[in-house]
């Protein structure tokens, strides 16, 4: 049998795997298994807020990310690479910077937020809607990035054939491109949802922390760590388990 893996690569890969796994094992060791049910039951509000916020944020990110992805995949215009960089920015920005930027623009004293407040009496900070916007902001790039890759893999021949048969651009997008990109879009949805679920920094900065309104699971974990560390371990375990489950299930779907 020939070895496919050079030994030095195998060693480094092993170290890399350890770096990823050791913290998870540490978490498993510290989780108070007997109190797990109680800790989870005591955090019903955070679970509910997280579910609502992550699902709505994913919907926003998909609704806006797919058109953006189409623009980036099919468009050919000046400033396209700058646009792409802008779209991807939230992936590399520290979440707290995203939160500060959201406050600066959509806060009560920001240009857009001030207008919303004056015209409609809407203020976003400290509301569930604010938490949804914070999560959408960080999830949107993931959906866009993956969907763009999906659209790039769509055969243009079919679209051209459809065009010669009289299909307009909307029909070509909806009936030809979109169905072919479904596996990639599914991946984008899952990644975006996972990112929205895990959002912390932008949420606490922009939407604040109030149980039942803006306190998502990651925020609850942060505050539990200071009050009841064991409960923080329990809640962390839920997030790890849910994320792992969804990523594995989704991987199976789109690699089929």
């Amino acid at each position: 049998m020939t070895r496919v893996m050079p030994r030095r690569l195998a060693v480094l890969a092993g170290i890399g795997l350890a770096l990823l796994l050791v913290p998870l094992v540490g978490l498993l060791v510290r989780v108070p298994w007997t109190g797990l049910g109680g800790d989870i039951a005591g955090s019903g509000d955070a679970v509910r807020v997280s579910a609502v916020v992550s699902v709505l944020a994913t919907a926003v990110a998909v609704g806006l990310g797919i058109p953006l992805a189409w623009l980036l995949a099919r468009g050919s215009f000046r400033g396209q690479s700058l646009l792409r960089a802008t779209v991807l920015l939230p992936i590399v920005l520290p979440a707290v910077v995203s939160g500060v930027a959201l406050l600066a623009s959509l806060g009560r004293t920001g240009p857009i937020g001030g207008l919303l407040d004056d015209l409609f009496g809407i203020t976003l900070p400290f509301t569930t809607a604010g938490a949804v916007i914070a999560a959408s902001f960080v999830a949107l790039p993931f959906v866009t990035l993956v969907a763009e890759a999906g659209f790039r893999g769509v055969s243009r021949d079919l679209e051209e054939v459809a065009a010669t048969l009289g299909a307009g651009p909307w029909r070509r997008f909806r009936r030809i491109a979109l169905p072919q990109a479904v596996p990639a879009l599914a991946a984008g949805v899952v990644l975006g949802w996972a990112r929205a679920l895990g959002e912390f920094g932008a949420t606490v900065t922009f939407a604040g922390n109030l149980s039942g309104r803006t306190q998502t699971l990651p925020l609850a974990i942060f505050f539990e760590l200071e009050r009841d560390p064991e409960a923080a371990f329990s809640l962390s375990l839920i997030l790890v388990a849910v994320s792992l489950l969804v990523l594995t299930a989704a991987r199976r779907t789109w690699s089929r």
Partner: protein
Amino acid sequence: MKRLLLALLVILSGCGGESSLIVGTASSMTEAADDLATAFGEASIELSVAGSQVLVAQVREGAPLDVILTADETTAADLSRLGVLVSEPIVFAWNRLAIAVAPGNPQAITGLSDLADPDLIIVLAAPEVPAGRYTAQMLETAGVTVSAASLEPSVRSVLAKIQLGEADAGIVYRTDVNRGGVSGVEIADDVNPVTEYFAAALKTSSDPAMATAFVAFLTTSAAQDILAGLGFSQ
């Protein structure tokens, strides 16, 4: 490569000579601790600033702190229970709470009872942090129910939300409202708790004698004058 590692080691081990201490500092004490460190003069002091409850968690997990300054008795007692202190924490500074509002007090807030107005956006420190504990205790004594828009992770982030204009009012330390971007509204002394700051040297310090000396320095008149000058008083 070896030479590079050696150079790194020299840098990491400090410049040698003068003793150096790392002082874990409660965030509301940041500026005062800076001044105190300069006045001490016997060792070079680095501050590691965090919420008191975060400092306790750091010590629990073995952070290499020499001295710790926390903002309430709960966190001091937590430290005591960990069995890592050279001796019991001592009280070295006092503070009170105050209402922080936008500069000029546009909502004309005059006291705690005004904070019950549901149309105001009020932010408070979370009950997990010392300022939040004191706040909850005070509101209960005063019989005022506040529906907070957010329970912030630190007293400094309460202050930030008011400086940014996102909240109409919040409860912070009296020493916090002497800063830019906010105005302070006083709270009557009969409901306003006197808050205490605790200091202790850690057994795990690289220089326990120097750490103990710094803690002792905090109660000298030189240190007390600095604290009083910054508004830390009963």
